[in-house]
């Protein structure tokens, strides 16, 4: 049995993408409201909209359980919106909506998996219904509610007007609803095109009333089909000012888009004290607005709020038109193509046929071409860049759930969410970050009592930050918890038989790194969240897979910081080409410290006869690339070749190559999958790239190269 209408399979991807985006939005709103312990009208409307969209598209896709749950949540929010004042306590609602959101998420996730059965939403729906009944019960005396269902298809803001309009008796004290009534009325006479007459009073002593009136007219002009006013020659006759002060400025107009637009113009104009609608089109409803100045103010505020919602909706619409979602595969292809283009370009420009020729025009044209391809490359790269905020915001939810379950109060601070990284990197960032955050909350932060004892704030703090430094993105997960106790780790490592040296020989860094070993957990108990010693290992593997590294800093009782460094992009790296025998190898520039020729006196031999190179008083071991990679070359003596000093975070070594060829930007291509079962990567090959002449150059992975030699 399929869980969705198979004829709509082509829509599936869009549906999943859209729904996930909406659910993320929903989570964000809920978290925000829960924090401030208040739900704003705007938020309620937004949730309502989200649920409505999900319901609609799920129903279209034939995913029944999702659409039912979305529908019930929609009902719930309809009622909340109707009874805002009566439902001051939202805490139970958050839980239910989070559950609903999770339910929908997991259903959508498993939608293509035919083996799992569609989950039964009955229980959840029951709980939502209870909540609905509860709210209803609390406000039953207020009024009978119109059936939630009928309204589901109408735009939200308008519904508000309708709801208010149906029972004008309740609107005594709420200026917002009064505005709503005002909005309601013009709608009726829109069709009749009758004139509306408004009398405007300016603030006392604001001077030049006639000019202000003229400016107001000017503002209104574009929105009105017909526009007359009294007194008439305000622009030229100074005396009209007096008349306006005494008897007000009377405007008659027929608007294009309904009176509320005009009212808004009047409300937002400067120096206007109040205005009254003398005749509201054909209906001739006289509505005194804002008799008291205070009420006027609130009305303006509320009107502005509604306007904000409107503009927000409009804005999000107009933004949407500038954004298109693109299949990532197409972007990958584009990237590949640009890569090919860069390669082909250098094939043409550095063509051996051109050697020794004086080609002034050709050089000029090729320089132009280089500039264009560089630009093209930059643009394609920037397309693939996405802000980390998506992943970061997901952490809010994890912190919330965990702090509830662990009974620790935790505040999550996000810094630099707009930092951008390559899409492929983003995807493999979520899991490691989740592990690190969980780790920080479960192991890092102390329980509240201990925190108070230590004189810390009872609320723990986890900071998740991202920043962009030259060619790298640095992500930090820090907590202000207990910190790592090195002796505890050593003891544990000793017990697990992981130590090979004396305790004293381990540096702090080495000790910290032990917690990322598989199967290593300092927690004696296995909890729901951590303690199996798998998480940190997985986190590290995931980060290393995208070419990143992870390190730890910690201070006892001050907290722990995990520092993740990842390259901005995987696709193109700056590399140094070196030749070894007949092969050309690429060393990433980021790992090169310097390159030089050495003097015989710089060679130091240890007791085993292993050569070391002394540079500025420090000794570095030598790795001969030809040896490590089994390449035949004539240059085997460190004195004959060129030495390249490379480093990783904790180690530096000298590499021996035949000669340097030059620096070049190269497009990284992964090694064929077929070779994955051999230890090529562990041996120190990160990938390969195609050079200008069509030959292949292996890209070295310095970290693995050092580790395995």
């Amino acid at each position, binding site marked *: 049995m399929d869980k969705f209408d198979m004829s709509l399979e082509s829509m599936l991807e869009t549906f999943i993408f859209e729904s996930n985006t909406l659910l993320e939005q929903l989570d964000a709103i809920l978290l925000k409201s829960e924090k401030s312990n208040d739900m704003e009208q705007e938020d309620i409307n937004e949730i309502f909209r989200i649920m409505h969209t999900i319901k609609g598209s799920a129903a279209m896709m034939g995913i029944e359980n999702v659409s039912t749950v979305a529908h019930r949540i929609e009902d719930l929010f309809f009622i909340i919106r109707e009874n805002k004042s009566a439902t001051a306590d939202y805490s139970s609602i958050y839980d239910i909506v989070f559950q609903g959101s999770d339910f929908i998420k997991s259903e959508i996730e498993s939608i293509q998996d035919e083996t799992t059965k569609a989950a039964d939403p009955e229980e959840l729906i029951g709980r939502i219904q209870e909540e609905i009944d509860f709210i209803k019960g609390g406000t039953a005396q207020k009024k009978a509610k119109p059936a939630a269902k009928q309204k589901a298809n109408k735009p939200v803001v308008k519904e508000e007007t309708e709801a208010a309009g149906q029972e004008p008796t309740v609107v005594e004290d709420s200026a917002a609803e009064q505005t709503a009534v005002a909005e309601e009325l013009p709608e009726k006479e829109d069709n009749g095109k009758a004139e509306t007459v408004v009398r405007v009073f300016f603030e006392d002593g604001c001077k030049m009333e006639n000019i202000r009136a003229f400016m107001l007219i000017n503002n209104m002009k574009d929105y009105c089909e017909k526009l007359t006013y009294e007194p008439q020659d305000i622009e030229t006759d100074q005396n009209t000012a007096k008349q306006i002060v005494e008897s007000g400025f009377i405007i008659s107009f027929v608007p294009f888009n309904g009176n509320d637009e005009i009212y808004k113009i009047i409300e937002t104009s400067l120096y206007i004290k109040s205005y009254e609608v003398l005749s509201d089109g054909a209906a001739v409803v006289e509505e005194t607005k804002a008799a008291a100045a205070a009420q006027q103010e609130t009305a303006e505020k509320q009107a502005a709020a509604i306007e904000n919602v409107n503009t927000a909706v409009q804005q999000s619409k107009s933004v949407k038109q500038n954004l298109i979602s693109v299949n990532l595969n197409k972007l990958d292809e584009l990237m*590949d193509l640009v*890569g*090919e283009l860069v*390669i082909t370009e250098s094939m043409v420009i550095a063509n051996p046929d051109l050697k020794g020729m004086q080609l002034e025009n050709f050089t000029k044209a090729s320089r132009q071409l280089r500039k264009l391809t560089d630009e093209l490359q930059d643009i394609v790269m920037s397309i693939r860049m996405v802000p980390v905020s998506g992943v970061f915001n997901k952490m809010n939810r994890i912190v919330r759930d965990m702090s509830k379950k662990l009974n620790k109060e935790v505040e999550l601070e996000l810094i630099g969410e707009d930092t951008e990284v390559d899409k492929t990197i983003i995807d493999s960032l979520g899991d490691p970050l989740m592990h690190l955050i969980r780790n920080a909350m479960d192991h890092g932060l102390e329980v509240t009592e201990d925190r108070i004892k230590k004189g810390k704030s009872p609320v723990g703090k986890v900071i998740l930050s991202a920043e962009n430094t030259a060619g790298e993105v640095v992500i930090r997960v820090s907590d202000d918890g207990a910190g790592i106790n090195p002796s505890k780790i050593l003891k544990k490592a000793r017990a697990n038989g992981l130590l090979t040296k004396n305790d004293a020989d381990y540096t702090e860094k080495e000790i910290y790194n032990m917690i990322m070993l598989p199967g290593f957990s300092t927690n004696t108990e296995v909890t729901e969240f951590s303690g199996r010693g798998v998480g940190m290992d997985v986190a590290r593997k995931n980060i290393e897979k995208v070419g990143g590294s992870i390190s730890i800093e910690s201070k006892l009782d001050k907290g722990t910081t995990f520092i993740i460094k990842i390259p901005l992009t995987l696709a193109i790296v700056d590399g140094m080409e070196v030749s070894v025998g007949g*092969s050309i190898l690429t060393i990433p520039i980021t790992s090169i410290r310097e390159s030089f020729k050495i003097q015989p006196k710089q060679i130091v031999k240890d007791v085993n006869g292993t050569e070391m190179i002394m540079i500025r008083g420090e000794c570095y071991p030598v790795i001969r690339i030809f040896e*490590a*990679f*089994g*390449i035949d070359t004539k240059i085997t003596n460190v004195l004959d070749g060129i030495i390249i000093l490379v480093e990783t975070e904790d180690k530096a070594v000298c590499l021996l190559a035949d000669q340097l060829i030059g620096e070049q930007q190269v497009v990284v*291509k992964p*090694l*064929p*999958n*077929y*070779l994955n*079962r*051999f*230890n*090529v990567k*562990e*041996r*120190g*090959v990160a990938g*390969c790239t*195609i050079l200008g002449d*069509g*030959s*292949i*150059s*292996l890209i070295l992975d310095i970290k693995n190269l050092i580790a395995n030699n």
Partner: protein
Amino acid sequence: MAQVLENITDVEDSLKEKYLTFIIDDQSYCIDIRYVIEIIVVQPITQVPELPEYLKGIINLRGKVIPVLDVRLRFGKEERPYDDKTCFVVVDVNGNSVGIIVDQVDEVMRIPDADIAAPPSFSKNGSSRYVKGIGKIGEDVKLILDCQKLLSDDEMDELSAITENMEK
């Protein structure tokens, strides 16, 4: 599902029972033409460390990086220098493109399933372990190679063979 399968078979019908034959050490071998993508002349090979001897390295096939496998070495025969008859046959097995290096490509021929006999089970050494059938064309005998086996891991094969024996 069944219908989709039928469609695929329709397309593949034209390739059915057809084999590409090539020569190594004067012996004619053939592989199912459905695996073959193209045949190219010798390309410069980039060595990759840590690979078994029969995997010579990687080549650049119009921007795609593919590994190349020397069939001679795979069969445990002597390596010999490439000449102008040496060819790389690019095959696609389970989504992996691999170039296989052969002494000489012969022809494409049809061998009806009925003319294919099971391989003799006397030897597990050299080339015979990769033979999945023996095709008879008149007086000629062609050894039909199992592409999957040719590309897969020896150790894995041996392991699974042992477990199979144990089960028996």
